[in-house]
């Protein structure tokens, strides 16, 4: 339809190709280990990893860990939707507000917030709340920045149309500013959620609490290498599904 969506339009052969390349990659590793080019105590055989999947699902109940991670990501998402977006909308109302706060928001984007996790542990304790708050903060900047960008970049002529129909300030916002800014806001939200998801898993790993990051850590401590790698592949798979879901949702909503 539009040029933009054409870029994202996947050709039919892309998925088989991706699967093929992945399979080839695993095959090469398997052969490399077989030939002792790679150390089996550092990197597991893909075939063993493959069979470990069954174990992590049935014995380690990785799915319930996934549910925990999911709830934490959801918590961070709610924060991004109900705090970061309104905050961006607020900042976009007045130039001075953005001038006063914009640099702080940008600075936050560059800050390695995850490294501050001991601080959050002190404040929120060793609880899912700590994870949610850190994830929310890492997703905060892109959401705010894209929201402000979307609102301040609404074309003047569209605002003029609203004025020519004598819209109230509320109507102008609801019927013109917000829908015009929505694609940018969704883009920000998608970026923010990706950051939040990565952070959730990382902090779970760091503080040994909660979902997928936690189980990867536990398996590694037990030195159950095939299961560790299987769990990592599982995390990657969940992330891919999550991002694909967000992309779909965005397309559907705009």
């Amino acid at each position, binding site marked *: 339809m*539009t040029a933009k969506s054409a870029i994202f339009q996947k050709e039919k052969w892309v998925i088989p190709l991706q699967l093929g390349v992945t399979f080839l990659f695993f095959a090469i590793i398997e052969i490399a280990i077989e030939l002792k080019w790679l150390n089996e105590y550092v990197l597991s055989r893909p075939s063993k990893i493959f069979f470990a999947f069954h174990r992590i699902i049935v014995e380690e109940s990785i799915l319930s860990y996934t549910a925990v991670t999911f709830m934490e990501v959801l918590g961070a998402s709610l924060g991004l939707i109900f705090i970061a977006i309104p905050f961006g909308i607020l900042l976009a109302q007045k130039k001075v507000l953005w001038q006063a706060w914009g640099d702080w928001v940008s600075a936050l984007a560059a800050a390695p917030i995850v490294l501050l996790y001991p601080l959050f542990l002190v404040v929120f304790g060793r609880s899912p709340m700590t994870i949610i708050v850190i994830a929310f903060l890492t997703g905060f900047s892109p959401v705010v920045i894209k929201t402000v960008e979307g609102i301040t970049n609404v074309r003047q*002529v569209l605002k*003029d149309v609203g*004025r*020519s*129909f004598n819209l109230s300030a509320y*109507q102008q916002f609801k019927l013109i500013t917000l829908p015009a800014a929505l694609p940018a806001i969704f883009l920000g939200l998608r970026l923010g959620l990706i950051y939040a998801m990565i952070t959730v898993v990382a902090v779970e790993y760091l503080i040994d609490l909660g979902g997928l990051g936690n189980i990867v850590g536990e398996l590694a401590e037990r030195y159950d290498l095939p299961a560790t790698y299987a769990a990592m592949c599982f995390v990657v798979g969940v992330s891919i599904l999550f991002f694909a879901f967000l992309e779909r949702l965005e397309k559907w909503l705009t």
Partner: protein
Amino acid sequence: MKVNKKPAVSVGGASSEQPVLVVDKISKVYQTNSGSLIAVDGMSFSVNPQEVVSVIGPSGCGKSTLFNLIGGLTPPSSGKISVSGMPVNGPHPSISMVFQEESIFPWRNVVNNVAFPLEINGVPKAEREEHARRFIQMVGLEGFENHTPSQLSGGMRQRVAIARGLASEPKLLLMDEPFAALDEQTRLLLGDKVIQMQQELKQTILLITHNITEAIQLSDRIVVMSYRPGRLKRIIDIDLPRPRTSEIVSSEEFGRYVAMIWDDLREEASKGMAAADSARATT
């Protein structure tokens, strides 16, 4: 003046020929970094019911400024504007504006774009969509009701903007170079559409343009503007028969009008070009 138009019936019942639009010694001065710029200087003219008047002038002479003044989006520095006798102090429900830039909402389909003015006035959904369909048909877009703007051509999008302007049933349809971005053939054919629509609705129109052909094709009168300051240079009556079609552009009379207006405009346009050149030379 115009023999072919205006039978005894007139709009709104009142047979008094009160003009729809009166522009009275209107001026606009912009304060810029390099001093004040007189964009529009003491212009006066009026538009009568069911009349089509064009304002023509070279690029940068203040046409869009005049458009924003009449639409109530920009306050004048001095002078008065009134619509059907009521002063314009801001956006006025009797005036619909069709903008030079593309102005339909990309997130709404055609029907919902056209129904927009009714939606904000609280007209129920079914009713406003039916109403919108009538205007969509009038601009020749039936069958495209559920298309999104990205699926339409530039000319179709401008027709949606016109239909949206008409949907609020304004006393005056105010258009700022609605076809400026289109090619000449499309422009001529859309001109025909505007003429048909105007006949059907007896719509009073003020059209701002820099295109001589378009101005003559559509208008009863043409207001020629001068360049810097934007003043009224001359008002020309176009006594071509109605109903017109785009075929009229090849007639001899049409050619005479073109020559006449070009005579007026050439001087102004070359002033404009010289100003643009010197501006480029200094930067």
